[in-house]
């Protein structure tokens, strides 16, 4: 069994604001670590590697595809997932806006989409529609035609100001 044979390492990582320590294989992908070890299944796998953006999480505040990021690369760093945006059981502004504006239909791309949007709003709190379209262009959605996704991000940005 390949994974058990490959060398493991103790990984210390801040996941959604809580430090975790887990033994992980050096070749374990961040997305598998999050889903299988941390049981945070909000982060999705939609492709065979770096194609669709469904696995987007924040690594030290930057949006990265967790399916082409090694877990061990996150040593000592902060990883944020869709679950981490909820505070005291209340959805974040972006989550609320995606819900109310129907930025989500089937919902499968939604966690990655919201994380990519979160990264955008942190670095650019007042993005233009063009900024939003460019920032989300690595995240595929097959349901919405992006119309209501753009509107959701715009609404969240307006809520903030």
């Amino acid at each position, binding site marked *: 069994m390949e994974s058990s044979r490959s060398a493991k390492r103790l990984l210390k990582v801040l996941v959604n604001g809580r430090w975790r320590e887990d033994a992980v294989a050096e070749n374990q992908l961040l997305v598998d670590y999050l889903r299988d070890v941390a049981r945070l299944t909000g982060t999705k796998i939609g492709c065979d590697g770096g194609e669709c953006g469904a696995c987007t999480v924040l690594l030290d505040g930057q949006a990265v595809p967790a399916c082409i990021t090694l877990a061990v690369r996150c040593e000592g760093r902060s990883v944020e997932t869709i679950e981490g945006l909820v505070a005291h059981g209340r959805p974040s502004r972006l*989550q609320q806006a995606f819900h109310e504006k129907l930025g989500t239909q089937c919902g499968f791309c939604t966690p990655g989409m919201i994380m990519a949007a979160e990264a955008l709003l942190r670095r650019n709190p007042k993005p233009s529609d063009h900024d939003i379209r460019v920032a989300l262009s690595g995240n595929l959605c097959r349901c919405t035609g992006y119309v209501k996704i753009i509107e959701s991000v715009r609404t969240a940005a307006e809520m903030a100001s």
Partner: protein
Amino acid sequence: MKAGSSGDGGIGRAGVPLIDGIDKVTGRARYTADLEHADALVGRIFRSPVSHGEIIRLDVSKARALEGVVSVVTGDDCPYTYGVLPVAMNEYPLARERVRYRGEPVAALAAVDAETAERALKLIEFEVRELPAYYTSGEARAPGATLLHDNKPGNLEREVHNEFGDLRQQFAAADLVREETIRCAEVNHAQIEPHAALADYDPLTGHLTVQSVSQVIYYLHLMLARCLEIDASRIRVVKPFVGGGFGARVEVLNFEIITALLARAAGGKVMMQLTREETFLTHRARPQTDIRLKLGMRRDGRITACECEVVQRGGAYAGYGIVTILYAGSLLQGIYDIPAIKYDGYRVYANLPPCGAMRGHGSVDTRHAFECLLDRMARELKLDPFAVRRANLLHAPTRTLNDLMVNSYGLGECLDRVERASRWTERIGRLPRGKGLGMACSHYVSGAAKPIHWTGEPHAVVNLRLDFDGGITALTGAADIGQGSSTMVAITVAETLGISLERVRVIAADSAITPKDNGSYSSRVTFMVGNAAIDAARGLKALLVAAAARKLEASPDDVECVGEVFQVGGGGQSNLPFAEVVKAALAERGPITVSGTFTCPPEAQGGKHRGGAVGSTMGFSYAAQVVEVTVDEATGAISVDKVWAALDCGHAINPLAVEGQIEGSVWMGMGQALTEETRYAGGLPVHASLLEYRVPTSAESPPIEVQIVESRDPYGPFGAKEASEGALAGFPPALINAIANAIGIDMSELPATADRVMEALVERRRRKRLDDARRAAS
């Protein structure tokens, strides 16, 4: 008893968010791959490396012997075919004797972890005697071609020939007759969730539970019983959250049955997660289609006759092919008034992954050809594209030549709305070079009026439960796959009862709990399940009103429920809160379950000619759209600047969801029109990733301005019809018509990729040079 308080299915006319939306935005929603499966075995499929061949030897003994491999299954483990159409089940979950496409499942195994399963796959020994393989309809239909299926001469799955009206006379009455040949590439649903299934078999009880990405759990249930020879009562099928369908998951899919076979062989639980490449291989999408279309038109734009030949390359197995080739012909009708129509359809077998149903099933490519040719003829007759459509409108209620019912018809208003919104009249012909406007119309059924399985049962059933807590639970077998069907059920129930939406809970698609439903296909759910939900809610309301009337000592006819208060005479005299009425109703008979049903009457089920049921529906949706493009003549690149789309959905029960569906379907049409295309090299899919298969990103997707037209269908729930498919087919022709408007080139092939546009531009320049040279010489 009076009708519901408002009873028009319009809780908050701006619409309501999805009742499961918070689960989706917070990451709480569990899709199949998210289900707890730490204790499950890992399933993997061994697939044919060749396109066509006889199986000489399949040896799985080494794989079986590998430590950690728990079960292995092959074609020997399932001698039963599966499929949806009872007349066209010619496919085994795992190939037997012959493989017919590259990637066809041949064997499968379950192991303790993924690495072991993948190592074991490499130990499978497989020998085939290769047979000639065909990758185009032409090759497969050529005389002397080896047959994929021995009982299908000419590799034809189905031929359709029908003619309505006097074709010869009507072509003779035309002032202009033109013919076009149009080619449309094969496309794929590319739903973002890859396929997955989790199967759990208990050898002690013989019970099987399958959770899968299905759009129709009832079909899956039937096929599991058939293929595994398990009594249906011992099977439970559950649909978790599903990450998009678009038709991909209407048919039962091979991996679903394979996962169950593995679980039974292992005596336990197996998780099967297909890769994106395998998800593409599973396919079942819109076939590559060749269309030869001839139209007759009078000088005033009136269409006199239509002759259409369609050839679909259906892939290696039947799937839904018969339905697709029938839809392509039947839905030539139901949108315009055409006095004579001839249709010849050919569904062809080829050594490629099987095609199936995809959003706009069967109608999209023929509608594309039709709307393109209509525009070209309008141009030749110097008629405005809108005027040509208006010259051919139907008048509801009516029946088409092929006996389809048209009960409501808002196409005229759709035309008015997009013409105005796009400022068509002011702008057409006045745009700078390289910019263009194009338009087109489309329609789609609100559910197939005749179910695929004729069981005699109602076409839809919804159960409502009311217990001591005062909560109402709606049970429906309809699969919410993101389109918002559960939300629609909640709204129709709440509106009919005059209660708040929060009081209604919807449980959907779990065969142990919910009534059987024919599932989420052909846009049937709002129309049929919505009507059944209203019927159930009316039944429940009658019980509550009767209980309230007894307490209030009034006649039930004088009692109404407004805002969860039952009152007599507008509330002036006496009233009772909802909880009191529930108590009174339960005191009589305990917890209440009420069933509501809906059935399409026989007169809605299409003509008596062979295949006449396909296309039949209680209500067509209608759509018109205008597309504005910019064509870069240096690179051939097309950008879509803006889309105006109007759809007649009868009545928008949830306007927010209707907008979302219209935007999504228009945009999916855009993908097919601009970039999406499957490609095979020697049967090997070279498109099988989301980088190669170009779905439009947010950066290249335009704003879409949506107009909802409400024609109030006489039979729809609160007057509603479908909203999810009808607008798709209009986009590709509107785009091609816009390109023609921008650069004067009529593209005959989809998708209109930059290289195809460039090729057409280069060809035009070459021809112009030749013409100039000839003129100079003479």
